[in-house]
Each structure stands twice: as structure tokens, then as C-alpha cells.
């Protein structure tokens, strides 16, 4: 299988990349790791007249501790994030997740930005970043805008990113919250993932699930219960999680029935909460 022919662009700067996106719009795709893009093009699901190679823009891969937040360039690969001392120190669950998604080849080419922009419903980082109150910075020729990770993905393979926008970085709020991400994998992809970010005074509790519906979703009843009663008994937590997950739009698919996936989603959500609570008690 070959990707259909395209014109290849290798911009020398982020400004030049954004200018190409402004010129070609829908007819162009940024080429990051290519682990999803080339697959989709080979299979004929996607076709673009222009590919804009981002791989040679080192400023897009910077990872930095900015004090209030951890800033991760969109082009940072899973492997780079997993190995980065700053991420390992400030956000171990993100480093750990990036070190175990997919396989070593996909981790060494695939980028965090490509993962978010592709918006595959089974992806892990979208839910984790939403639960961490991360902000995505999108850039076009008219400037930058910030979009909360919580509202970036709107459906399967759909985001609020306009065709002329480049995701340049992800800013993750650093907080005292304990963070846990739990997932269950069948074969090569996640069937249910959940993040809990809990226990920072004055900050709302966050529980999100991913990999179950078409896009990541918060568990609002569970969050309110934990906001009101951080020590809520397990039985009440179980009820709240079950009710929240029952309200999600989850379909049967070839991997799991909707009921089974609901069960898995509740399981990972409860595990993530229990993991955070254990850490808080230490």
C-alpha cells in the first residue's frame, strides 16, 4: 500500500509551517510522526495534496518547567516524554504512560501532538491531559489561541482545531494533586482508561475516562461527591461512578460490548481514585 502522491514541504520555521497551512488549508496535513497519518493515507482513508513536515522543527519539541506549568512541545515523541527528567520528576504518570503506549517504534516516532490532533477514540493522552487541566496552544498566521484539553476533542477523529492551525505546545498546570492514570489494554489499544487528579486544597477534583466513548468525558457526579466529601465511602463512590458512566454514550464494537466497556470504565475509574487516595494517605 502506498500513500497517494502529494507535494512535500519542509518548512524551516514554525512561521513558515503556519504560512503553508494558511495557503493550503484542508488540502494540507502536518506530518509529525506519521504513525496515524501515513497509515490512514496508505489505507485510503485520508488523502492530502500537501504534507508539511514538522519533524525538522526542533523548537516544537521543547519540554520545559515554566514554574506554574509544565510545557511540552507538540512534536515531543512518546519516547522523549517518557525519558525526560523534568516530566519524570513533575508528572510521573505522564512519563509512565508515554513509556508504555503502543510499542517502541510507535513511541519513538509518534508525538503527543499527533496523538491529540488525530483524536482517535482509543487514545490515552487526551483523557489524562483533560484531567490535568492542560491547555493546548494552537497557532495560525493570525496568532495563538489557548484551548482547554477538556474541550479540544469533540468526537471520533474530530477536534476544534481549524485546518490552518498548528498545535504548538501543551501547557500542563502543575498542582499538588495526586495523579493516577489506569488503563486496560486489549491487543494493541486501550479499551478503557481513566485519570484521577485529587487532593489539592482549593482545586476541584478531576476524574475523566477515555477510550470508551467517542471522546474523553468527565465523571461529574463523582467529581462533586469527592469535592464535597473527599473521604466518601467506597460504596457511594461506586454508585456515583456507575451512574456517571451509565450516562455516557458508549457503543458496542468489535472489541467489547457497551455493557462490558462500561464495566471496564468503572473499574479503571475506581482504581485511579483508589490509587490517588492511597498516595494521599501516605
Amino acid at each position, binding site marked *: *500500500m*502506498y*500513500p*497517494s*502522491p*502529494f*507535494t*512535500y*514541504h*519542509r518548512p524551516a520555521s514554525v512561521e513558515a509551517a503556519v504560512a503553508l497551512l494558511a495557503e493550503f488549508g484542508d488540502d494540507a496535513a502536518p*506530518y509529525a510522526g*506519521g*504513525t496515524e497519518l*501515513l*497509515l490512514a493515507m*496508505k489505507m485510503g482513508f485520508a488523502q492530502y495534496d500537501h*504534507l508539511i*513536515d514538522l*519533524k525538522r522543527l526542533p523548537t516544537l519539541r521543547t519540554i520545559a518547567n515554566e514554574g506554574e506549568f509544565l510545557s511540552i512541545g507538540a512534536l515531543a515523541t512518546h*519516547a522523549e516524554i517518557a525519558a525526560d527528567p523534568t516530566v519524570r520528576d513533575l508528572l510521573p504518570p505522564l512519563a509512565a504512560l508515554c513509556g*508504555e503506549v*503502543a*510499542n*517502541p*517504534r*510507535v513511541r*519513538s*516516532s509518534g508525538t503527543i501532538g499527533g496523538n491529540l490532533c488525530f483524536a482517535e477514540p482509543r487514545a490515552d493522552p487526551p483523557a489524562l491531559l483533560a484531567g490535568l487541566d492542560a491547555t493546548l496552544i494552537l497557532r495560525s498566521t493570525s496568532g495563538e489561541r489557548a484551548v482547554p484539553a477538556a474541550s479540544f476533542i469533540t468526537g471520533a477523529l474530530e477536534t476544534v482545531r481549524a485546518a490552518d492551525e498548528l498545535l504548538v505546545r501543551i501547557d500542563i498546570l502543575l498542582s499538588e494533586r495526586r495523579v493516577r492514570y489506569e488503563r486496560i489494554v486489549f491487543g*494493541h489499544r486501550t479499551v478503557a482508561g481513566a485519570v484521577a487528579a485529587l487532593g489539592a486544597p482549593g482545586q476541584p477534583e478531576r476524574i475523566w475516562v477515555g477510550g470508551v466513548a467517542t471522546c474523553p468525558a468527565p465523571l461529574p457526579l463523582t467529581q462533586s461527591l469527592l469535592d464535597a466529601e473527599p473521604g466518601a465511602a467506597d460504596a457511594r463512590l461506586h454508585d456515583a461512578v456507575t451512574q456517571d458512566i451509565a450516562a455516557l454514550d458508549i457503543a458496542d464494537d468489535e472489541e467489547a460490548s457497551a455493557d462490558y466497556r462500561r464495566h471496564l470504565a468503572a473499574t479503571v475509574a475506581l482504581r485511579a481514585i483508589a490509587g490517588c487516595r492511597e498516595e494521599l494517605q501516605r
Partner: protein
Amino acid sequence: MTASLDLTFTLNGDAKTARVAPNTLLIDFLREACQLRGTKRSCDMQICGACTVLVDDRPVSSCTTLAADIDGAVVTTIEGLGGPDGLDPVQQAFLDHNALQCGFCTPGFILSVKALLHANPAPSHEEIVEHLNGNLCRCTGYHKIIDAVESLVRP
């Protein structure tokens, strides 16, 4: 902007140049233009690992990488490791442990192990198993492959 692309790279130790169409995949470039057939195409979706090659010592699935990506890079395929008169230690370990039968997956496994040992010269047993999770073998049942890698790390 380019309709065809000029590449300068190092392939198995030799400096090379080539001109490719932008939609050329690395696997086709290696197998067809360079006539290096040790790199195998199988699943075509980055799961099986048979097409693994090293680009600047990183493992990549050549089935889902553009040839454009090797411009300026150092590429190693199985042909770049040892030959009959002097095997690479990883090849020798596979031979010594009967870590192959039909051999189709072997180039990918060996390059995958090279990448692991380059990044992490002393992986734990769990790290070896996790790393090789990304390569499929339908003959050996994996134990012999893992034993071969273990023999390099904990002789």
C-alpha cells in the same frame, strides 16, 4: 516545495544520495531502490515489527515512515550487521539459542534488540519482554528469543 526529493544519508556505513518521489515509503526505498530485501513487509501497520530498521539508532517501522525522513540520517538495516564471517553479537546470540525458525521476523527482532541495547545496555528481564512485545514471531514462542537477549545482558 518538491515533486521529487534529493536525499543524502548513510546506509549501513556508506554515504549515499538518492532521488525519490515524496510518497515513497522507507520500506519500498530499501527493498526496491536499494535492493536490500532483509527488511520484511508483513502487517503494514506497525504491529508486527518485521520491517524494523534503525534510523539514527532509533527503531522505526519502515512500512509507515517516509523515505524523506532519512535525509541527513544514519540508517541501519539487517544487511549492515555482520555477515557469515563475523556475526554481530546479537545475531550470534540468536543463533546460539535457536531463537529463529523460519527467520522471517528475525531481522526485525535483531534490530529491535540492537535499539534496546543501544538505549539501555542493561535492561531488566521485564524491560526485555516489554520491548519485544512490539515484535511478533509465530515460530519460536518467544522464550528462546528472550533467552538470547538475556545471554547478552546477563551472560
